């Protein structure tokens, strides 16, 4: 390949123009944002250049009511996400061929990636049973995260009965959504635990086996073994209590991990735009893309791992 003249694939004059434009935008961005206002005072730049300071509100705003049911802006965005995801997969799987085209290959690699994850962690039998829920969690979270980065989400203001509100808002930043997912995950894990192990599943939480057998030993005259057994039996019961607690704590940790990360990311982006309206926020957009992927992966694979732990027999049976 012949070496290209100029800089980064552009001819030299164009490259110089681009660099100058970037520098100019940077300067305007710095002067127009909060930085410039603080350092140099109001320079009288046009008002559209500056971004107002964010006033994050955690509850989602209600856009309209149908009957007495309120519909929030996050609900609307959730429908958009559902529509986008379903359309993406519907058109990709409409005419599936044994020898795939590019579109089909993208869809297959997404599904195949998560299926591979499920099968790796839970084995072929259970991996395929867990697959649907785990994949839906993954796709829903990542699509929500990425769609909320599209310009217009969070910046279109409508007037509602309760005052001004954003028309669209990232679904992950509405605590009801992470909570709903966490509850789905919780119910899913407990369902598979009970379905696979039956009543034995609960011995993880209420483990009195060692205590009762040790009391039996004590009455038979084996004092030393009996007393030691009672000691360990009490520890078992305590561990069971902790297990139960951690099971319930998962719902909270699931909820606030996703909610916190996503809300924090959104506020971070708004802050960056407030500080400098142009350019500065771009790297953080890249960061948020990554965070969206990671949170989706964490949520889905933790659900998968917890489900896998739930279907594994407990050690106390030995």
């Amino acid at each position, binding site marked *: 390949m012949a070496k290209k003249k100029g800089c980064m694939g552009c001819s030299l004059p164009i490259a110089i123009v681009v660099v100058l434009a970037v520098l100019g935008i940077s300067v305007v961005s710095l002067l127009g944002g909060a930085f410039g206002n603080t350092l140099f005072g109001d320079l009288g730049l046009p008002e559209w250049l500056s971004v107002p300071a964010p006033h994050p509100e955690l*509850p989602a705003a209600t856009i309209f009511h149908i009957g007495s049911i309120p519909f929030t802006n*996050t*609900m609307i965005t959730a429908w958009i996400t559902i529509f986008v995801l379903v359309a993406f997969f519907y058109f990709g799987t409409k005419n599936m061929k044994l020898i795939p085209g590019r579109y089909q290959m993208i869809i*297959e690699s997404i599904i195949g990636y998560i*299926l591979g994850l499920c099968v790796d962690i839970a084995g072929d039998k259970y991996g395929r049973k867990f*697959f649907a829920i785990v994949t839906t969690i993954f796709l829903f979270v990542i699509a929500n995260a990425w769609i909320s980065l599209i310009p217009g989400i969070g910046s279109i203001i409508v007037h509602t009965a309760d005052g001004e509100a954003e028309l669209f808002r990232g679904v992950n930043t509405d605590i009801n959504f992470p*909570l*709903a997912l966490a509850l*789905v995950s919780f119910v899913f894990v407990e369902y598979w635990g009970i379905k696979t192990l039956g009543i034995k599943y609960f011995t993880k939480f209420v483990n009195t086996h060692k205590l009762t057998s040790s009391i039996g030993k004590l009455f038979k005259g084996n004092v030393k073994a009996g007393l030691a057994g009672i000691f360990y039996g009490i520890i078992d019961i305590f561990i069971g209590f902790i297990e139960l607690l951690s099971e319930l704590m998962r719902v909270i940790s699931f909820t606030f991990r996703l909610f916190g990360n996503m809300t924090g990311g959104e506020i971070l982006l708004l802050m960056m735009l407030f500080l400098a309206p142009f350019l500065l926020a771009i790297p953080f957009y890249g960061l948020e893309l990554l965070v969206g992927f990671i949170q989706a992966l964490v949520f889905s694979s933790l659900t998968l791992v917890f489900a896998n732990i739930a279907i594994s027999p407990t050690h106390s049976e030995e």
Partner: protein
Amino acid sequence: MEGLGIHLSSLIAQLFNFGLLLLLLYMFAYKPVIKMLDQRAAKIKESVDQTEEIKKQHELAEKETARLIAEAGKEGKKIIEQATLIGEETKQKAKQDAKTEAEKLLAKAKLEIERERDEAIGELRSAFADLTMIAAGKVIDRSLDKEQHRQLIDKMLNESKVLNKN
């Protein structure tokens, strides 16, 4: 709870959204894609198995061919050996036959020669007898009784050792 924005109606709505998405994706994504992936995996496995089978068969056929060629070579060698043997035998027989024939001819020729010699001797003898008779008649000038005379000569000839031999 109010500060975070947790509302039962929103929560139920999001649960419903999740359920809806799960159902739709199950219908439009998971089922067809997994079916396709499994189908392709099965197809690939089948192809690989088939290739393996063909390879095996090919190897077997190659072995069979080599065996057949070797066998044919052996057979050919054997036939040539046999032919050589038969040829040798035929040669020997022909030689033998020729020898026997020649011997037979020789014996026959010998017999013929002997017979002819005997004949010649007989003729010579009778001619000699006649000659002797004529000569003796001339000498004694009297004709002996011809019959008596012949007998006499024959007797003499028989006694003569030279002519009697053979």
